[in-house]
């Protein structure tokens, strides 16, 4: 296991480096002189020169990149042009909200997707399978910001079952405030999970060990829960990193619609406020989060399935 971990960490290095290169060059996409654009109407020659110096824009590109790396290593991702402080503490302060939302939506999606995926696989080709697949088709094509608005109208404004926005203070508050946002993301995550799970269950049903389990006289329900579902779920969970990217994308939209003080809403606000260092810091943070979750899922996978370690 130790050797597997070391190998995975070594493989991670070039990706981590690549992420820093991409985020470094993001700022270079700004048309014109970033310092002038960032300062806007405060762009006197003196201010521009000072900002250029503090951003390191007066150095050679390679040196700028090395400085950028050094700053990342010390947690200095840059100073927000709006908040006038380092961006990392602000991002970390809002990250729990987004993570809460991501976990909440995954749980909601799983609660719906596991029974549906299993049902569709077991009834393959029959009417209920067709109906579930039709549902998948429709929810895949539904714009989530539209779903968010419709849910908000029906459940918050008309029925007044849920608060209109915000995050609340207690755990119970969070559950109530984030229910509709989580449901919105779950609506678009569920079809993906149903599809994957249906496919995986059909694959597992064809394996020898399932036939053996049946042959040795195990009752059908037990074969399904112990052997089929468990193995199908493991391979569904193994793409959690891919889903995380998707969840974050969903969070950006839903946090904005529901005005939830998370990192997604921060990204949109910073985009409009031209807070480039904040956008850069958020991008770096999201990418790091994805590779971290990928690493964790790989490790979990290796614990659950020893074959992985010897590949």
């Amino acid at each position: 296991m130790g050797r597997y971990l070391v190998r995975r960490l070594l493989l991670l290095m070039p990706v981590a480096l690549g992420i820093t290169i991409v985020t470094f060059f993001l700022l270079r996409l700004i048309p014109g002189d970033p310092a002038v654009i960032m300062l806007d109407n405060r762009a006197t020659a003196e201010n521009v020169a000072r900002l250029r110096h503090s951003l390191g824009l007066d150095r050679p590109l390679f040196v700028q990149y090395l400085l950028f790396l050094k700053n990342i290593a010390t947690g200095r991702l840059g100073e927000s042009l709006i908040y006038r402080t380092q961006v990392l503490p602000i991002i970390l302060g809002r990250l729990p909200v987004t993570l809460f939302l991501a976990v909440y939506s995954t749980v909601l999606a799983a609660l719906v997707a596991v029974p549906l995926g299993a049902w569709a696989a077991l009834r393959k080709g029959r009417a209920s399978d067709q109906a579930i697949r039709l549902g998948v088709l429709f929810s895949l094509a539904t714009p989530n910001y539209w779903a968010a608005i419709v849910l908000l109208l029906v459940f918050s404004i008309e029925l007044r079952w849920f608060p209109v926005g915000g995050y609340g203070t207690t755990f119970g508050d969070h559950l109530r405030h984030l229910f509709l946002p989580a449901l919105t993301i779950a609506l678009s995550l569920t079809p993906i999970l149903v599809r994957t799970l249906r496919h995986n269950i059909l694959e597992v049903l064809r394996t020898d060990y399932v036939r053996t389990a049946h042959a040795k006289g195990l009752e059908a329900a037990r074969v399904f829960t112990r052997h089929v579902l468990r193995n199908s779920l493991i391979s569904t969970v193994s793409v959690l990193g891919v889903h995380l990217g998707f969840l974050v994308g969903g969070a950006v939209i839903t946090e904005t619609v529901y005005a939830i003080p998370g990192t997604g809403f921060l990204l949109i606000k910073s985009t409009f406020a031209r807070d480039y260092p904040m956008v850069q810091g958020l991008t770096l943070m999201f990418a790091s989060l994805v590779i971290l979750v990928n690493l964790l899922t790989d490790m979990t996978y290796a614990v659950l399935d020893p074959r992985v370690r010897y590949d």
Partner: protein
Amino acid sequence: MIDEIRAAPALRPGRRGFGIRLHGSATAWIAVAMLGITVFAAASAPVLIHYDPTKTDLANSLQPPSAAHWLGTDNFGRDIFTRLVYGARVDLQIGTIPTAATFLVGLVIGSVAGYYGGVVDGTLMRIVDVSMAFPFYVLVIAIVAMLGPGLTNMYAAMILAGWVSYARVIRGEVLAARTHEYVLGARALGASDFRVIRRHLLPNVVTVGIIFAMSDAVLNILLGGALSFLGLGVQPPTPEWGLMISEGRDFLLTSPAMVLFPGLALLWVGVTFNLLGDRLTDRLRPGG
């Protein structure tokens, strides 16, 4: 010698027409009909409709549906139905232009990497690894944040962030196809690399790209709508469905049609492309 290869279709097995070979399936025809209706409406909008999609008429704002305004009017007095139909033009463009561009870039880079292997391929695969770490929406939004909002910059961001997926898919296909006998045969006969890629590899791998592009088109329409909804893509007063939903948000209780119908339109186009993609997959990749 080269002409002999051209004349010998047997040397290019597996090449199939990817045109309309959909007959026999009801859902396929439904999808084609849905696409036909959308394209027809988008193409003939100026002929069919005499309202201007962007001209404001404040005296007639927020009218309920009537014979004159089938879906009513929005807060600026513009006919919602007219804007919906004109919106099809913009949203179909969002579905096709960045999709086609990323497809093309990915096709060229992916086939070169897959064919030559070595450093080119290694570099591409590292780029793929890195780009997979960025949540797609975040990367696109971050690029738009740097370039500035607007349709052109949105396209640029979608292409910059999207080509890698195509390159990865095409590269995998080329890698598998290049060891086939017809490719080895063409090379043995002295065909140039360019010719082998263009005449023999691309026709065989392009199918997979098209299947991928179908689902990507849906994602691009949804993404384009989302960015416009957030104010980062298409700018007012252009009629675009995501933007229309955003504009209708404040009038949800008085004029729900402003939000409802653009959403249904997006759903309609999304279902159309998904159905087409599914059918094409069944048709072109049996069992795949």
